[in-house]
């Protein structure tokens, strides 16, 4: 089942008279339940692509169907809804709200989805259990290690039951051992919960976890293929 269908997408930035194509003619589709890595050097357009994929930004040209909805036609409030319900974000810098407990950070997407407070608490506790932080609920981000913070972020990404987890270099700030633990968590979410995981990474050993690797270069799709298991 096709979850994401991107067809001839362009992103052009205009600076004065000059125009610069951050993305050119990108077309691809992603099925439900896939585990995908997006790779490419900096400036290759992968971050721009991530932003469009995550509905944080709109393409200049082209069509993007997410779960059958043409998101290029949506206004900013509708995009916010899509981000809230369809996509769970995990960032390199964790991006938790400072001085706010793990539990409340995890509750946040549900506040914007108007889920009643009791329900929010129950779901958040469950999500923290899934990521293995059931006894860290009242800790604030600065009382947690990097790996733990990233787990909180992952818990936050799954509470609204979004089908897609979009992770932008999720292990970039973590040591190798913790990176692998986080990746195992993504694999588990992919295999057990059926989440479609899309992650952006530099590191080949992280990309190894995925089944399909998409490479960008100079704003164009360089290669897209199932990983060949050695």
């Amino acid at each position, binding site marked *: 089942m096709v979850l994401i269908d991107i067809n001839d997408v362009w992103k052009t930035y205009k600076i004065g008279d000059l125009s610069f194509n951050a993305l050119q003619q990108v077309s691809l589709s992603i099925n439900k339940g896939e585990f995908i890595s997006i790779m490419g050097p900096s400036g290759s357009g992968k971050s721009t692509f991530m*932003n469009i994929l*995550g509905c*944080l*930004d709109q393409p200049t040209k082209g069509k993007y169907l997410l779960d059958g909805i043409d998101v290029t036609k949506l206004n*900013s*409030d509708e995009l*916010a*809804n899509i*981000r*809230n*319900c369809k996509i769970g*974000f995990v*960032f390199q810098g964790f*991006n*938790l*709200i*400072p*001085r*706010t407990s793990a539990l409340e950070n995890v509750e*946040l*997407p549900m*506040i*914007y*989805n*108007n889920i009643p*407070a009791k329900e929010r608490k129950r779901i958040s506790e469950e999500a923290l259990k899934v990521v293995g932080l059931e006894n860290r609920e009242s800790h604030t981000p600065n009382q947690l290690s990097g790996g733990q913070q990233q787990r909180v972020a992952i818990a*936050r990404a799954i509470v*609204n039951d979004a089908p897609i987890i979009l992770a932008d270099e999720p292990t970039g700030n973590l040591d190798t051992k913790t990176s692998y633990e986080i990746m195992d968590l993504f694999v588990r979410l992919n295999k057990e919960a059926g989440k479609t995981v899309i992650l952006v990474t530099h590191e080949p050993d992280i990309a190894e976890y995925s089944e399909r690797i998409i490479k960008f270069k100079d704003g164009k799709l360089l290669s897209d293929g199932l990983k060949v298991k050695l």
Partner: protein
Amino acid sequence: MIEVISAVKIAIRALIVNKMRAVLTSLGIIIGVAAVIIMLAIGEGATKQISDQMASMGSNLLMILSGATTSSGMRMGSGTQPTLTFKDAEAIGAECPSVQSVAPNLGGVAQVIYGNQNWSTQVTGTTPSMLEIRDWPLDSGRTFTQDDVKNANKVCLLGKTVVTNLFGDLDPIDKTIRIKGIPFRVVGILDSKGQAAMGQDQDDVIIIPLTTSQKKLFGAEFPGMVKMIMVKARSSEDLDSAQNEIAALLRERHHIGLRQDDDFTVRNLTQMMQTAKQSSDVMAFLLGAIASVSLLVGGIGIMNIMLVSVTERTKEIGIRMAIGAKSSDIRLQFLIESLILSLTGGIIGILIGISSAQILASTAGWKTVVSPFSIIMSFGFSGFVGIFFGFYPAYKASLLSPIDALRYE
């Protein structure tokens, strides 16, 4: 749109993180609101005092004083030369259509004795209509009659202060007191009137028939002399015409030529009081207006801090937008933050204002009135300040693009 209760919780948490800053920001509003409450309390207290005095004085009142003596070229002021007579008063009552009733006065200060107590007080000789003119009811007993006046009977009415000083707890009715050694029978007690405009005790008075005053106590330089005539006009609109009618009548009766000055003065007390009331109203309004300037400054303080807060928390705004907050959610969050700042400031300011007004009343002895209106107004005003000055920062926050906000360090 998210639930308001969630937005309030988020806002409170954000404020608690920067406690000191929140307190200092609210301080502007606290001072502003407290100042408004205190100023209005003082202004309204002054107005209330004047209205009370107006009510105690009686309404639509004119006072006619005899003219000024001139002694070796030095003019001595109104009331020093006796020119008014009982007949003048009767003529005013009979011939001036705008006049409702008339009470001539002749009195002075005298020592009064009852038993082993004595007291010095104002003794006023007048006619029974005096009580009507001054809207002065009796507490007990009866007033004296026209017959008492005609026969110069030695009867008297006592003010509350005199009763307290001479009789204590005893009932003075039908007791005999001595005024300047002359025995008077107490027939009635006047109700309490409180302080007059300048703070004199209006209850420190004895009222006796005019003729008794003229013949037995204060004497008269010529028969029927009075010091002052009090006049009540038919209505407040008739005050001016009454004044003119009286002046014309007295000029005629006193044979004053065209080029000569009046040998009497007519004073419009009600008008004087109304002028005083108006100016104290204006004063109250001005004090409130000045105090509200500090509210305005407090509001600018809120705006300033909210703008700083939006910039500081750009990244947080980005995170919230990325996980599904709409522009309106962000706007609501910051608006509620500034509203909480201003409303808590407002409530604290109201409490400080009310207690300061009471402290002022009890220590400085100023009359202060904290009206519900001033409380509602200053609370509403602080809410308005919160929304007005919080809107721009909140709006600015809601305009951020999620990508730029997320990238902000």
